[in-house]
């Protein structure tokens, strides 16, 4: 016991430090140039979803072309490349990263750890405005001569800046500038997320009492702070290659019969830089999704998460390992076979902590009291989809399997499953879950069910057949196949089918948007804590949480976030801020 006493000494005084709260003085500083993390979260989300819609429309155009080649005069080969590039980049960076970290991170971190706001609110505000600028620069590239870049979302030099590639002039430069801006903006936000988690938790909220959502977002942010610099380096050096004619990445090269001035640069160096960012990027998107799903299934199955400590470790280990697997994207770049062996091994190792997470989710659900609410449906759909995409990832992680499948539709199917469909499902689940907190009203259930089933089944109808096309050898990033002998007629029929489904799924999203708007006015009143969750964001005085998040006093935490199905507790759960003695009874509200 004496030891325990000493420990408490070392931890320091148990007082909640009062932060200097920023107070909005006018409408503009309250809703536009706001420093309140919740407003910034909504700004981030709205911007991300708006630009995500552009990417969605681009995917329809691509699908139209693939399903019905030679039917659309307005889609030329070079347009197709531009669509691919912008679709891929927007989805990965400007939608998913911004939404998970800038959107959910900003909204949930302060509320879940019991803070009044982020620790550097001004910097946080700047982060959003720079992000918006990055998006606008990206959009501007659609309107410059030559259009946006068509280099593929990987932007590999030398082709990215050679005249044969669409958008090789202004398009690519704007793309690179936009990425650089995004990274600067993100770094400002990321600084906030990490420091807030470390320094602004409320009393009693130790790291190992944090909900897994916070762990996921926190670790993902650390990854992003360490990985995005690589993309920044690549972007800066490629911009110089393009604008000043330097040769960082440009080798000696003949383009369209003309010997260019560049010489001696290394395109492979760019690939390393890109994937040193690109692989962790997968986990920057996946870790918040892991965290959120853990919390969703725990709340909606009324069961504590199985193996909490293991779940935290898995998140941290996956994060660390994600920095040593990047070259599995470069098996066909002519690398040393020993290198390939090394990266194949690390890639397979990373499957272990990932599998642990899946087992723990399954065990949490095992014989639990599962409520098939919309968030639960989306969480379950995520688990299934992630396993599906993860397994094809194991195939592609092996050099011998990857070489024939590389650059086929199989790869497209794999990464859409694992980092396209799966995280989007979590985002929907999370929106259905936290919408009542953000607006005070529930989303409409019937519309939600319709949205879920069409999206879930539709995604499988789109992407399962694409695996098969990959086996047939249909290459990715091809404008059209023409009359290629190894591609049977049935593949064309399949492509038509996929396109039709893709359009239907796309339209179904309109139902979701309608639901979001409709419920804001007409939705059922949610009241306090409709899902009976334990975490702090649901224990605020007002719903939606007001300025400063909590009332006069910050909540004090006495337990972990997973006291569900507690025998004897009046409501089968105990919120994190309920003191032990009064545990079974609910505090006066």
């Amino acid at each position, binding site marked *: 016991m004496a030891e*325990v006493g000493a420990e*408490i000494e070392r931890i320091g005084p148990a007082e909640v430090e009062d932060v200097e709260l920023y107070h909005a003085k006018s409408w503009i500083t309250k809703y536009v140039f706001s420093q309140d993390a919740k407003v910034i979260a909504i700004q981030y989300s709205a911007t991300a979803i708006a630009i995500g819609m552009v990417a969605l429309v681009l995917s329809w155009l691509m699908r139209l072309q693939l399903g019905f080649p030679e039917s659309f005069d307005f889609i030329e080969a070079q347009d197709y490349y531009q669509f691919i590039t912008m679709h891929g980049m927007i989805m990965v960076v400007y939608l998913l990263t911004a939404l998970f970290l800038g959107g959910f991170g900003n909204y949930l971190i302060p509320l879940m750890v019991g803070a009044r706001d982020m620790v550097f609110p001004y910097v946080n505000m700047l982060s959003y405005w720079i992000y918006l600028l990055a998006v606008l620069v990206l959009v501007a590239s659609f309107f410059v001569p030559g259009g946006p870049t068509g280099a593929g979302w990987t932007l590999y030099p030398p082709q990215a800046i050679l005249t044969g590639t669409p958008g090789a002039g202004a398009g690519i430069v704007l793309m690179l500038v936009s990425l650089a801006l995004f990274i600067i903006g993100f770094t400002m936000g990321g*600084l906030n997320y990490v420091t807030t988690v470390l320094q602004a938790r409320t009393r009693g909220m130790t790291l*190992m009492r944090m909900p897994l959502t916070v762990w996921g977002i926190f670790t993902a942010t650390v990854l992003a702070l*360490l990985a995005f610099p690589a993309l920044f380096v690549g972007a800066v050096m490629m911009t110089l290659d393009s604008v000043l004619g330097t040769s960082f990445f440009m080798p000696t090269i003949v383009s369209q019969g003309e010997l260019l001035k560049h010489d001696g640069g290394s395109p492979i160096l760019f690939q390393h830089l890109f994937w040193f960012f690109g692989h962790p990027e997968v986990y920057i998107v996946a870790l918040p999704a892991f965290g959120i799903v853990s919390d969703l299934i725990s709340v909606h199955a009324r069961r504590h998460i199985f193996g909490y400590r293991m779940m935290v470790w898995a998140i941290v280990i996956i994060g660390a390992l994600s920095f040593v697997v990047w070259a599995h994207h470069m098996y066909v770049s002519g690398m040393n076979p020993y290198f390939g062996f090394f990266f194949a091994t690390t890639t397979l190792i990373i499957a272990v902590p990932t599998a642990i997470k899946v087992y723990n989710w399954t065990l949490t659900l095992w014989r639990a009291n599962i409520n098939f609410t919309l968030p639960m449906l989306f969480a379950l759909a995520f688990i299934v989809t992630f396993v599906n995409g993860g397994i094809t990832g194991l195939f592609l992680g092996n050099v011998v399997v990857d070489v024939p499948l590389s650059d086929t539709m199989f790869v497209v199917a794999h990464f859409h499953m694992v980092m396209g469909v799966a995280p989007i499902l979590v985002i929907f689940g999370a929106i259905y879950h936290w919408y009542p907190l953000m607006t005070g009203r529930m989303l409409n259930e019937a519309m939600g069910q319709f949205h879920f089933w069409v999206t879930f089944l539709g995604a499988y109808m789109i992407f399962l057949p694409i695996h098969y096309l990959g086996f047939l050898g249909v290459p990715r990033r091809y404008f059209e196949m023409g009359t290629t002998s190894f591609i049977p007629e049935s593949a064309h029929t399949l492509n038509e089918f996929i396109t039709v489904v893709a359009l239907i799924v796309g339209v179904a999203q309109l139902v979701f948007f309608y639901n979001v708007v409709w419920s804001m006015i007409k939705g059922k009143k949610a009241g306090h804590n409709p899902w009976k969750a334990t975490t702090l964001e649901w224990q605020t005085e007002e719903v939606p949480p007001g300025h400063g998040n909590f009332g006069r006093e910050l909540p004090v935490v006495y337990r972990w976030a997973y006291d569900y199905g507690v025998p004897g507790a009046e409501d089968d759960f105990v919120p994190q801020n309920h003191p032990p003695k009064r545990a079974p009874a609910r505090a006066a509200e």
Partner: protein
Amino acid sequence: MNIIEQLRQKPWTAEQVRIDDAHGGRAYVLPTAKLGLRILLTAITVLLSLFVVAYSDRMVVSDWRPLPEPWLLWLNTLVLIGSSVAMQRGLIAVRQGRIERFKASLLVAGGSAVVFLLGQLWVWRQLVELGYFAASNPANAFFYLLTALHGLHLLGGLVAWTRLVARLTHGDTRRLRMGMELCTIYWHFLLVVWLIFFALLLYS
């Protein structure tokens, strides 16, 4: 905070609950702004190291033609060292509560940082006049790139410095001191970065 130790905690045991309930909620005793700065410096370190990796990767190729090191670079380096020294003296002064001395040192530090930047621009001009363009050799390209990067980071530091100077007349000592602590850390960091870059440029 030892992360491994944290991760090994068993939050469900009665003993740990007692410790956890008393936990103030912070991971570090450090002031929040300082921690934020450290995290930022970590990200910048990653960024700059990647440039150094790219540099070393390119340096070994045979077409690398190192450029002459103008003597002015040595002078600039001295000025930057002087700037850091002035910062440090200012920090000591503000810690001791000698405000006048602190103000003078702060102004000297910022002033010499500006002189350093102008000096770097002058070096660029000299090199361009001598015909060392960015595009003509990778060594030149890297030289301009690294100096520009360092300069931009220093410029960012000067923005923070300006905000600190603006507070000189009315800010309370506690906040001035915090600002000074942060600026000094950043200044020393950039000095080290410059010394590494300079060594790299000399070495090739």
